[in-house]
């Protein structure tokens, strides 16, 4: 069995790291998406414009790179109920746990924060267990 480096994943990941470094170095902010979004739900004066701009440019990015034949995948589902439940759990979980794959997994882990390392291990393990059961019940 041969293994080749997934260059897309590596390059994309490096862009995420560069983005997080730029946002923190120049503005002092954490590039955690759940945190940035939550700051728009619970707005504080003078702390919303940069969040809105970050989210809007993040959404537009997919449009800008589409001409390079890099496209969003076609996503479909058998169960909107499952998608809704997943969204609800991701929303509640990222608030209680203070971050998601970006805030904990990139910025927090990069800072060697113990809380973020623990959070990342916990959400990875819990997602792996869920996918195991999905496979067990033939959902994958």
């Amino acid at each position: 069995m041969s293994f080749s480096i997934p260059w897309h994943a590596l390059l994309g990941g490096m862009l995420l790291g560069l983005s997080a470094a730029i946002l923190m170095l120049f503005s002092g902010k954490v590039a955690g998406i759940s945190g940035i979004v939550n700051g728009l739900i619970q707005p504080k004066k003078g702390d919303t414009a940069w969040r809105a701009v970050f989210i809007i440019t993040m959404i537009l990015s997919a449009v800008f790179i589409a001409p390079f034949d890099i496209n969003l995948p076609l996503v479909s589902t058998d169960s909107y109920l499952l998608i809704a439940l997943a969204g609800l759990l991701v929303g509640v979980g990222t608030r209680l746990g203070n971050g998601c794959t970006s805030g904990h997994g990139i910025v927090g882990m990069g800072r060697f924060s113990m809380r973020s390392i623990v959070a990342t291990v916990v959400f990875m393990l819990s997602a792996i267990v869920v996918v195991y059961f999905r496979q067990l019940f033939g959902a994958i």
Partner: protein
Amino acid sequence: MHYSSLFRIAVAAVAGLLFGAGMVISEMVDPNKVTAFLNVTGAWDPSLAFVMGGALLVFTPIYHGVIKKRQTAVSGEPLQLSHKKKVDAPLILGASLFGIGWGLAGFCPGPAVSSLSSMNPVILVFIVFMLLGMMLANQYLAGRVCSLFYVKRGH
């Protein structure tokens, strides 16, 4: 508009564009790819490990070599870092719930938001319920859900 707020907007725009591009290029936006990455006991596809690896490869040296040595950001603003040290129950509970949601749909917040331009109903439903979940958790964290529950029980 002050020069400082323009600067902050420009930084957010550059960072947002890079982040969105990173999510799409890395294929984190593909829930099947994410599921295959999490499926360690089945047909495991480890490629998405390179996303976090690549991100840490760039962010970690810049943080420890440049950012950490500074008192403030280039804009003069404070570095808004969490100084919490304690691993507590909400962190573990929150991360567990987040992981369950992530495993169920293959979406976490970054990829879902980065995919919004598709106007795909799956993405829209996920985002709407994610926002709802955040609001619910905020109510809980502010102590309102518990007090509501308490009043109900009292009757």
